[in-house]
Structures are given as C-alpha cells and as structure tokens.
C-alpha cells in the first residue's frame, strides 16, 4: 500500500533545476521545494511523530540543501541526495531531542519505562506504536521507509548509504521483533 506516489523526474530535469538553483534562480528554488517537500515532511513526521519537529527538520533539510547544492555532483539522483539530507537531519535532530528529554525527565519516570504490563495497553494502535518506537534506530528507519512510506530497497539503500541487502536484512529484523512484540495480536493477522 503506497500512500504517496513517488514523483518521478528525469535526470535532465534535475540537472536543469540544479543549474538554475545554483545560479540563484528563486523560482527554481521554489520549484525544487514544491517537488520534494511533501515526501520530506511526511518522512520526517513519521520518524518524529510531532508536527513541530517535522516542520523544523523539513525546513532545516531544505536550508541545508540550498547551501550545499553547489557541491552536488550528480552521483545519485537529486531525490536520493535530498532524502539523504532529510534523513540525516531528522535522525540527528531526534537524537538531540531524545537527549534533552532524557535530561529533563524525572528519575521516577525513567525507572517506570519498560515496566508497563501488556494488559495495560490493549489497543493495537498504541501497542504497535510502542513496538515500533522500541526498535533500534536502523531497524525502525528502514521499516518506516519501506513498510510505512513505501520506499523501495533501492531508494533506502541510496538514501541511507547502505547496501540493498542490508536494507532487506534490517527490514527482516524489524518485522521479526515486531512479530514478537505483537504476539498477543496474532489472531488479527491469522484470520
């Protein structure tokens, strides 16, 4: 199930667009932004789970892209290059946010994390969210990109700069962990 269709663009169009942006064409900047902002924002929101953070990450992604576009060498597609920036910005921002929240979180809350009983959260949506959140970052990222946002392994490989096999392996690991964590809901998918 693909929620967002990937807006394919030819490499010729990308090159022309990049050339115009490098030349300082404001309209070209806006065109580049309009072309990719939805996917960047959606991916950031999926990973952050917060609109404000997603906006910050998206804005930072494009600001950095406009700053660095002069050094873009065309070794990958513009989409892959832009998503690489988006993923880097988002993951680093989430790490920073997580550190801040851990420092601000009271000691008592930190102790209770992970001790919640299964019966306390019967809702599948909440259980799934917690299960995905508990995944390691590399597994969670691949899972969100592939199973949630519909990226292909090729796109994930180019964006995260990992081999395709690694992307598949990470996805397998993520699904396996989620299957264990959601074992209580096995009748849901068996039926």
């Amino acid at each position, binding site marked *: *199930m693909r*929620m967002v269709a990937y807006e394919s663009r030819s490499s010729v169009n990308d090159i022309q667009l990049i050339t115009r942006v490098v030349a300082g064409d404001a309209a070209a900047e*806006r065109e580049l*932004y*309009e072309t990719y*902002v*939805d996917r960047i*924002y*959606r991916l950031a*929101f*999926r*990973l*952050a*789970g917060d*609109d404000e953070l*997603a*906006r*910050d*990450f*998206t*804005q*930072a*992604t*494009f*600001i*950095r892209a*406009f*700053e*660095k576009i002069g050094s873009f060498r065309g070794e990958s597609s513009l989409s892959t290059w832009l998503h690489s*920036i988006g993923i*880097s*910005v*988002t*993951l*680093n*921002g989430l790490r*920073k946010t997580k550190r801040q929240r851990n420092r601000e979180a009271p000691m008592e809350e930190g102790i209770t994390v992970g001790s919640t009983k299964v019966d306390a959260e019967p809702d*599948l*949506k909440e259980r*799934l*969210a917690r299960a*995905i959140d508990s995944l390691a970052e590399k597994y969670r990222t691949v*899972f*969100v990109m592939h*199973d*949630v946002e519909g990226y292909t392994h090729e796109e994930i490989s180019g964006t995260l700069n990992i081999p395709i096999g690694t992307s598949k392996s990470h996805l397998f690991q993520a*699904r396996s962990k*989620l*299957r264990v964590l959601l074992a209580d809901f096995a009748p*849901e*998918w*068996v039926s």
Partner: protein
Amino acid sequence: MTEDNFEKFLQQTAQKYNAPPARVPREEMWNAIQAKRAAGPHVVYGGGATYLIRHRFGAKVWLGAVAAAMLLVATGVGIGRWTAVPRQPVAATNPPPTQPVVVPAPENGASEPAQAGVSPTSPEGQVPRGGAQSRVGEGNRAVATNTVKGGAMSVASAPSTNGAASAYQLTAVQHLSEAEALLTSFRARSTADQQMDAQLGAWARQLLSNTRLLLDSPVANDPQRRPLLEDLELVLVQIVQLSPGSTSQDRDLIEKTLQQDHVMTRLRTAIPAGSQRGG
C-alpha cells in the same frame, strides 16, 4: 502464508503510526525557510555545516589557545623566579655599584687603585679618587688588596635591611672619616708645634669616646670593622696621652703603629667614596 498475512497486517496497521496530517504546511515552512536564510547562518539539525557551529567551535579553540598561552607564560615566570632565588643573597653581599670603595694607590704608583665590586680590569675612569688617597702610601699591594676585600664586605653591609642598621652605618662612616682627618692632620703637623698637639689631643679624646661607643654598638659586629675600630682606639689613646712636652720618639711610636697596622689604608677602604669626610 502466515508470514504474508503478518506483513499485510503490519503494513496496514503501520499506516496509523505517526500518521502525518493530510495537508502539508508548505507555505508556512517555505516562509520559515526564507526567513531563516535571510537571518543568516544558524544551527541545522543533522550536523549541517553551519557558521554558528563553526564559530562556537572556533571560539572554544581560541579560548583553549589563550589558556594554554597564559599557562605557558605563568610557567615560564615561575621557573624564572624559582631559578633566580639563589642569586639574591649573592647580590645582597655585593656593594652597590653607586658606592664603590676605593683603595688608595701606594705612593710609588706601581699599583693601580682597586675598586670593590668592580673588576680590576675596569676602566680607571670609573674609580673615583680623593685628594688624600694620592698622599697616602703605606703598606704593600697584597695587604691593600686584603683590606679592600674586608672593606668591601663592611660596606656591603651598609644597606642594611632596616633603618637602625642604616643609621649605625652612617654614624660609623662619619666617625671613620673624622678619624682619618685626625690622623692625617697628626702626620702632617709640625714636630715642634705643642699647641697643635694639645688640639689634636682634645680631638682624639672626643673620637676615642665615640670609638668605644661604636665598639659596643652593632657596627662592631662586622668582623672587618671591629679590628679596625680596636686599632683606631689604640692609636687615639696614644694621641690623647701625648703631653705637650712629648718627645719625637713618642710620636714615632704612634707613626709606627699606624704603619704596622695599616690603619690609614683600612680607614680609607672602609669609607665609601664620595661620603662626607671629617663631618
């Protein structure tokens, strides 16, 4: 089959995970991007190359460099002071260059005057010489050199660390200057002048009392000055005891004492050049 069902179930259910809003706030984000770009460099998530981060990093580097430089300077100053400590006592025992002690040259002129605290090879022009120094020619060079060293040590103690010591030092120098004037007058007087003998006797009596006072004062603690004061006391006693009808033999005895003990040379050595004589 179960695996496929789980994947489908997972993909369907996961669509609700952190579901983004249907409307992407494009315009708001674009305006924010333009505003941030217009505002200049700023912090960007993901370790982006931001001027602010570079500036903060550069400031830390500069602060570290400044701290290292200050530490280096402080260490150097500390080492310098630590190594300079042993020199201070040596400098304290040397006479101040502004008060050189001059040794009068012998009458035969074979030796050049020596200056305490100054190398013998120093230019002669740096050695102040008094008129009386050229008239005195007693003792040989070896004795004069020893006297110079002793005198240098005596003068070296002149700039004492407290005011009382300085006062004693000044009094002693004035007394020795006056004694030198007395002895010079004694040796230059006419042998038949009995009135002069009486005046010199009165003068010597006054100096004798002062000499004894100085022998009981801290000034006499100087190992070089105390023998000089004792010899001076002996000569002064002899001058005081000269009666108006004394013979030339009596005066010859005094003269012999002066020569044997090199009293005049030692006196002039102990008196810093430029100090007031006979005051």
